[in-house]
């Protein structure tokens, strides 16, 4: 499915920038409706991204998960969010509102930066005369440098530490599709429950359910499966629409 809005995939610095661009392209305000509306495009983007900056993957998937939660809630009004999930939704809204302000502020700074530079006093050739200080001695120098180098080491080592194994949307899609093919009828709760915590670094249980739900929505959209919810609090039943056909996904 092509994106509705012209989004250059390689310009994204992060998930908030992407989400806000999608919202602003539709001239919407940051609210549940807007967030539900951009969910598909956001997920599409996350899926379409082949090379991800590893350390941003967690943020992207995490925010995709929250967006899907918001969309799920709009599709299934009876879906009760846990306290934690509601907090995530609120947090995302607050971050997007704040980030929108930051972007406005950045645009203002960009408008004036370097335009009317206030220049410093010209360098006068100073009278140099030797003036050491009380705190200057050889051990103090060695100590100062050791401190600087230690700080540099920390900076350079950090990125590696952030790499964590991630659950991908594609993996979940595959899994769900296979389950649908082997078992004609499958309850959403069963499936989500069978999903083993892949140590995502996020709250794996929630992510598992949401990613499953997303994959389900995708399959429904592609007509590969039919999903039914018989009563408001009940399970969603999944079944093959065309048993003979291989579902097309991805």
């Amino acid at each position, binding site marked *: 499915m092509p994106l509705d809005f012209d989004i250059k995939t390689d310009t994204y610095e992060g998930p908030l*920038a992407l989400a806000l661009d999608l919202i602003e392209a539709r001239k919407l305000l940051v609210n549940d409706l807007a967030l539900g509306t951009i969910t598909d495009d956001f997920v599409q983007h996350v899926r379409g991204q082949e090379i991800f900056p590893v350390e941003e993957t967690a943020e992207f998937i995490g925010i995709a998960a929250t967006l899907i939660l918001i969309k799920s809630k709009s599709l299934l009004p009876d879906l009760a969010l846990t306290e934690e999930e509601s907090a995530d939704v609120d947090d995302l809204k607050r*971050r997007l509102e*704040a980030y929108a302000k930051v972007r406005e502020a950045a645009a203002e700074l960009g408008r004036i930066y*370097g335009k009317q530079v*206030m220049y*410093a*006093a010209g360098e*006068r050739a100073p009278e140099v005369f030797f003036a050491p200080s009380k705190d200057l001695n050889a051990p103090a120098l060695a100590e100062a440098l050791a401190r600087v180098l230690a700080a540099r080491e*920390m900076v350079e080592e950090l990125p590696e*530490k952030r790499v964590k194994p991630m659950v991908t949307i594609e993996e979940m899609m595959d899994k769900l599709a296979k389950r649908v093919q082997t078992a004609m009828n499958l309850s959403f709760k069963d499936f989500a429950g069978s999903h083993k915590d892949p140590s995502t670094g996020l709250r794996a249980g929630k992510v598992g359910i949401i990613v499953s739900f997303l994959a389900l929505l995708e399959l429904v959209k592609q007509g590969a499966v039919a999903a039914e919810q018989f009563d408001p609090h009940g399970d969603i039943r999944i079944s093959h629409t065309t048993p003979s056909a291989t579902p097309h996904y991805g």
Partner: protein
Amino acid sequence: MYASPGARVVGEGRDSYNSLMLTPPAALEAILFAAGEPVEKKRLAQMLEISVADLSLAIVAFEASLASRGLALINTDEEIELRTAPEAAELVKKLWESERGRDLGKAGLETLAVIAYQEGATRGDIDWVRGVNSSASVRTLLLRGLIERREDPTDKRRARYALTSEALAHLGIKRLTDLPRHAELARGVEAHVRTSDVAATSDVPESAV
């Protein structure tokens, strides 16, 4: 132009600096001109042998005397610096043929914006609101001397960032409150960032940036 506090002459009746007939604003002007860099207010008060309160009055008077002149005073919370007036930028630029690269880029501007409109932002605040790891941007801004790191008075391991006099000079403003739409945008950025303190992200130790 210069009222009561300056009517007293600096060094009057003392031998301190040769009983010179310089008013505090004139003395400020000379020191700032000679220093050619930001000077701490504390140090200025010491040199002029006046109280910090009197120094504030002298600064106000000096600033008033700079109106419609070629120079301007940049005022951060701790320092003041004398620079050319923003209106003179085009003219002074002609002195130096080559100009420094000045484009900050999107990430740099956003990071600078968070720090500008939310004074004392931490790395966690910046990451939280931008949704990305901002360490590269913070580092570049530090290298360019546009921001500086300050110790958090309540938690020494945590660094807080602030704009330098150099940054204000590049923005052509004399103090933070002169930022475009300052009150409005500061409120927008700050209110949200502040409530995030608990949720603050960034597993990066601040000291490392």
